[in-house]
């Protein structure tokens, strides 16, 4: 037995990546996720298109926000506020954005409690009236599927070529690096797109998740998101020597996205430092786009920022992946294409 233990210790000691995963990652995850794991909503953005009622004293949790729009549904659809309060002649009506689950629950509690204390206010939840958890989670889960296929499966596909030695063969063949790159990821792009459609259809059929918005807008968001995740997959493959390393790295990138993207814990509830990590993750923006389009029928201008940020992330990650992948093939390529005199 000791022989086995000593052999194993020696192997683990030399596998620095696994060692880092076993020692550094748990500490890092505990610290990061400890600050992230909170369902408490500290701020609810409230729009008062008719102005804040005279003499009203707002609880600290409510933060008045300015908006140029006047229609409550329009304001919520554009994501200008979490709640819109307007007068209806007899009292006040608080329209709450149900696509922000925890914020909506906190807002409902605030306004129900205010009504119980005699404030003439009624509440209505829009876009997800039952405050259904699956309605909020399924759009994000579609993103997780894209992440899984895009990052993990793609990286494995490329690493398999390297491990088998066939990447070297491809490098010598008269194929341009971009042919190899695009040819390698195109099937995964199609599989991921089909997977996403399946998740959304299943979500609609089994959990009654609504699809209120434009299919094309969601498709655009999904395409940009895939752009980032496929690039991340190739990037992972370029720094992994075998499939085990690729899986380790892919998990390291998947886990923070699940916990820090706002999929489970609201971004607004996280400590500022941790929230900024969330802003660097593509799932954060896909989540905003998918929830916005599917639940709120968000128009293009309402999700233009997350779309643009996804595109920016895509350019950075995909560009880096192309450069790294080319360097796998290019030293040979440069020399092999031209006869050397």
């Amino acid at each position: 037995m000791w022989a086995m233990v000593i052999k194993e210790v020696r192997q683990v000691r030399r596998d620095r990546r696994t060692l880092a995963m076993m020692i550094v990652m748990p500490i890092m995850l505990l610290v990061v996720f400890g600050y992230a794991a909170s369902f408490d909503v500290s701020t609810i953005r409230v729009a008062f298109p008719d102005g804040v009622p005279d003499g009203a004293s707002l609880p600290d949790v409510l933060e008045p926000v300015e908006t140029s729009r006047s229609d409550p549904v329009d304001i919520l659809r554009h994501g200008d506020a979490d709640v819109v309060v307007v007068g209806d002649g007899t009292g006040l009506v608080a329209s709450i954005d149900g696509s922000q689950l925890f914020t909506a629950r906190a807002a409902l509690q605030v306004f129900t409690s205010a009504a119980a204390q005699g404030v003439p206010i009624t509440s209505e939840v829009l876009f997800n009236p039952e405050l259904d958890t699956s309605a909020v989670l399924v759009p994000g889960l579609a993103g997780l599927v894209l992440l899984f296929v895009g990052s993990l499966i793609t990286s494995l596909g490329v690493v398999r070529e390297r491990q088998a030695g066939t990447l070297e063969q491809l490098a010598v063949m008269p194929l341009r690096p971009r042919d190899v790159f695009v040819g390698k990821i195109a099937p995964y792009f199609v599989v991921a797109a089909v997977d996403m459609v399946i998740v959304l259809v299943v979500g609609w059929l089994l959990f009654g998740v609504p699809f209120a918005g434009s299919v094309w807008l969601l498709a655009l968001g999904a395409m940009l998101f895939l752009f980032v995740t496929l690039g991340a997959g190739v990037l992972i493959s370029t720094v992994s020597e075998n499939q085990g390393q690729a899986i380790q790295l892919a998990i390291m990138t998947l886990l923070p996205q699940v916990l820090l993207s706002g999929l489970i814990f609201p971004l607004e509830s996280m400590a500022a430092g941790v929230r900024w990590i969330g802003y660097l993750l593509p799932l954060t923006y896909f989540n905003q786009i998918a929830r916005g389009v599917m639940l709120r029928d968000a128009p293009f201008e309402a999700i233009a920022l997350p779309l643009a940020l996804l595109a920016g992330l895509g350019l950075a990650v995909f560009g880096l992946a192309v450069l790294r992948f080319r360097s796998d093939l290019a030293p040979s390529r440069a020399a092999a294409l031209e006869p050397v005199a």
Partner: protein
Amino acid sequence: MSFGFTDVTVELGGETAIEGVDLEVEPGAITAVIGADGAGKTTTSRTLVGLLSPTAGTVRRPRAEAIGYQPEAAGTWLDLTVSENLSFVARAYGLPVASDRYRELLEVTGLGPATDRLAGELSGGMRQKLAVAMAMLPRPELTVLDEPTTGLDPMSRAEVWRLLARAAGEGTAVLATTSYLNEAERASHVVVLDNGKVLAAGTAESIRSSFRGLLGISATRPLDASAWRRGNHWRVWVPNGSLPPGARSATPDLEDVVTAAAYARQEAS
């Protein structure tokens, strides 16, 4: 035009992998690069096809479209069928898929009945023949195969060399590396590498005839001569002088010549 190296040195990770290597790979002939593990065979192959850049010296090779290559321990996609492997190569080289060439190679390799089998399900010999067929498919000007016979049984090795001879017969310049000295007889030109340097080069016959000194066979290891174990006896090499007592004279074969040359180099350095 021949392909090859002139005084090529390749450094990898600060170590010299091959040094001052000259190599001629003539069209219509097979050049065998022979050497032990770590001698520089794979570095030679990879440099010739352009996967590695030389630190010094000149490399002559055709354009990528005219190179067929089979890397060490690879050459086929295991999860593709025989037919799909060949089709992929055809498409990559811009050739028609089910061409006469494709059918001809299936026939000469005997892979015709196995076209729908996955490469991973083939025996080692059949898989290697598929790899050679894939390298030959585009009728390249230069075909480089890194250890195409390693791990194969003698029959399969003979089959692979038959295919290489066929490729050479079509006018291709073939370079094959191997660690089996007895395969040198099958090549038109042989380059023996030792620790990244050329130990001997020429035809198998010319290398054999380059032997200097005396070779003997002894039942025991002599203390004052270079000797190496072969079978149940010792081969004894004496560059100058006479054989030690108890050793009887023998005719050197290629393995003896190369081993003696390695000893000579060791003593010189």
